[in-house]
């Protein structure tokens, strides 16, 4: 059956039924996502003070909705996605501009727009659209072509444009993540090493200049990162409290609903940015490593998809989305462990928040679509 199915895809036979496509969805991965979302439910139940309200119930609902969205997108032919990629990119940019003009200001930054009951953070959506756009641009580029600097300029601009818009909000963390996701796609597509070295040098030169243009609160984050004890009740407060909560969890944790720091509100934003701390406090090192392990499996799946995909478009999407997921998790966990400055990045599938859940599941939908259509015919590389 598998053989006929693959042949049909190779010959662009659109006659593959939905049921057959569903069969090809890696349900073990879906189960993995469910397990992580369940961890999120448990953590949010605790963050809600031992109650499904106000976080956990909504979380489950959103995940259920996200699951449907993901599976629906997985059914969409990846070549159709490729054709619409640049349109999606354009919509993303338009939304970013819109948020700058009409967005709601939160914590000194314009970040989301209200769409009915939903709050949308265009910067989250933008990262996915950027991956799609870049993958579409690079899908048929040969090794030779990747050496052509002129060929790299349009996608370079395509990365810098959203980065600049997100910086303008201003949201330093997301801007950096967007830039890095873009860089990962460039790298996987075959951009030359020395060009990366050159770009890295350019960033190193630009960083001090950029620091001058940062907002005070952003600078405060960087300085308190360097010495959290310098301002224990100011910007460093979050990091210190998070470390205290984490560390006091010890090896086995304080037990479900027993985390004192989280429940007594010493831990700020425990339902969003610091949900991992909540888990680590109540379930200890063992629980924290288990969650980290589950999240690593997601990453492993992303790269497995990338390696098994037979078209460059899908590969680049898988790498881009995988990197995006990695950066989410890494920045969040590194932030709560005091390893990098606080960035306001949620933990995917676990943190409370509709917009993040939506975009995460959208991304996984695309990933599954790549997996399901991994043998689709795109045509060869071109110079």
């Amino acid at each position, binding site marked *: 059956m598998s053989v006929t199915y693959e042949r049909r895809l190779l010959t662009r036979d659109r006659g593959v039924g939905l049921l057959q496509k569903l069969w090809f969805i890696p349900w073990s991965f879906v189960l993995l996502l469910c397990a992580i979302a369940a961890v999120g439910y448990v953590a949010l139940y605790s963050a809600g003070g031992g109650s499904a309200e106000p976080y956990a119930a909504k979380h489950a609902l959103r995940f259920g909705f996200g699951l449907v969205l993901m599976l629906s997108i997985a059914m969409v032919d990846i070549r159709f996605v490729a054709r619409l990629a640049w349109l999606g990119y354009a919509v993303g940019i338009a939304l970013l501009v819109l948020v700058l003009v009409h967005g709601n200001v939160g914590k000194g930054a314009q970040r989301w727009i209200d769409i009915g009951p939903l709050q949308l953070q265009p910067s989250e959506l933008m990262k996915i659209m950027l991956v799609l756009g870049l993958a579409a641009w690079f899908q048929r580029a040969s090794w030779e072509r990747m050496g052509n600097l002129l060929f790299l300029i349009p996608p370079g601009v395509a990365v810098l444009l959203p980065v600049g818009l997100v910086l303008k909000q201003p949201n330093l963390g997301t801007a950096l993540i967007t830039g890095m996701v873009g860089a990962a796609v460039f790298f996987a597509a075959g951009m030359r090493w020395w060009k990366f070295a050159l770009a890295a040098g350019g960033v190193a030169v630009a960083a001090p200049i950029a620091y001058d243009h940062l907002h005070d609160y952003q600078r405060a984050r960087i300085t308190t990162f360097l010495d959290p004890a310098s301002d224990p009740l100011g910007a460093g407060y979050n990091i210190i409290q998070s470390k205290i909560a984490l*560390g006091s969890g010890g090896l086995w944790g304080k037990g479900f609903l027993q985390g004192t720091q989280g429940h007594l*509100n010493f831990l700020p934003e425990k339902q969003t940015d610091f949900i991992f701390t909540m888990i*680590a406090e109540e379930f200890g090192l063992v629980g924290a490593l288990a969650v980290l392990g589950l999240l690593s499996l997601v990453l492993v799946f992303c790269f497995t998809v990338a390696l098994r995909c037979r078209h460059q478009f899908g590969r680049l999407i898988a790498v881009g989305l*995988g990197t995006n997921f990695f950066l989410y998790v890494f920045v969040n966990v590194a932030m709560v462990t005091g390893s990098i400055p606080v960035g306001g990045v949620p933990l995917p599938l676990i943190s409370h928040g509709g917009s993040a859940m939506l975009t995460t599941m959208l991304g996984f939908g695309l990933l599954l679509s790549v997996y399901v259509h991994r043998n689709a015919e795109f045509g060869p*590389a*071109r110079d």
Partner: protein
Amino acid sequence: MTLWRRAERGLGSGKPGGSGFKGVRKEEERRRGVFTRRALLLGVGQLGLFGFLGSRLYRLQSEEGDRYATLAEENRVSARLIPPPRGRILDRNGQVVAGNQLNWRALLVAEQTQDVGATLDTFSRIVPLTEQERARIERELRRRRRFVPVAVREFLSWEDMARIEVNAPDLPGILIDVGTTRLYPEGEHLSHLVGYVAPPAERDMDGDPLLELPGIRVGRAGIERYHDLLLRGRAGAVQLEVNAVGRVIRELDRREGVPGQDVQISVDAELQKALRGRIEEGTSIVVMDARNGEVLAMASQPSFDPNVFNAGVSAAQWRQWTSNRATPLINKATNGLYAPGSTFKMIVGLAGLEARVVTPGDRVFCPGHMDLGDTRFHCWQRHGHGSLDLRGAIKLSCDVYFYEVAKRTGIDRIAAMANRFGLGTELDIELPGTKRGLVPTRAWRQAQGKPWNLGDTVVHGIGQGFYQLTPLQLATMTARLATGRAVQPHLTRMIGGRAGRQGGGVAEPRHPGAGSEAHARGDVGRRQRAGGHGARR
């Protein structure tokens, strides 16, 4: 279509990698190879960074876990002190002369408000605060830690309390609680003895955390000050679980404090009141049980109302007290210094007997004066008393007799005897700041660079001259004369239900001097009672 494109490119471009189906395959494989290598690099790198996070978690949670567990505990546990009720002061019949009364007050906790100034401004609009009050509050806020409440206003009326409660949402950091305040039911009748309390000053901070509590008072004078530590008690403590904003979640542990102990004093409040009505402005009186030194009454006129100190003494009130020449704040019975006059003659007589310069039967002729060189010292009886022995001299309070005895005895031996009777010595009564007085000696005078003349000795023989003695010392002297015991004046009868100093009963029979003169003193004492003349001032 794909095939067509391949063909077109294969024909048109002519580049080696892109020509022909084989070239396309090769190119595709090259691209894929590059991708695989780089994707693996990215994937492994990312998993490696997850590994770094894992190691970071291990360090925080396993290696440094204990340290953070301690920090977490400190975070959530907040210890608060429970002020113990201050012990009462009772008179000898159990009547309360210093008690506690409820005091509703508004407190400010600095850490619970964003802006202390704004809160105080709002408070001021509801219950007006004076400039001085404001300055005091701000001073106390600076001195105390941010979570220690500071009293904003005490003795709130019901109306003020209601107004504050209604406006509570606009008054972050303000809370109302009930404390206790000192009440002296007898007012000014016992103020010199009982003393008064006041908020602790910087110098009172002896490390007792209790003193940091708002509204706490320390004894400033009298028994309140002398027994301050006993009356104060020890603070209890509650360990509370608090959340990040300091709100109390639950009580973890409670350690009850030790309430201050009641102190019973020997004074009879009714006797004190009755006596105070009978003495003039500027005088004082001491009534002592001669058998055991218990002070039954000690009054000094005028007096002051100790209740005034509770709310803080106004500058005007203070000026009025300090400018009054009759010194209402000073207890003249212990701090007023006077020449003893004829009451001192017994001491002179005793000193003469002990020095064996005179016997009870020796007679001295009093012509109404005594001449020493070209100076004449008069007797109060201008016509003279004629020939007198000791008993007659004391009975008539003859000056010449004692001029003569003093001359024979010498000032230093008189002074030594006076000291044995408590004169010019520090009496161990529970009233801080009690004056020691002065009984002059030859050495004392010479230390001033002046010689001591025989004429000085003569004058001092009748209790005049440099003597500076307190009424309490004279009362003590009299008690010692009357009983022959080393009576110590004291006020404390019982502390916390147990006997205070001196066993609460009769003092142990301890003589101020030794052996032989005891009889003589007792003898003189009896005679004095029989026909005493009293101080003649």
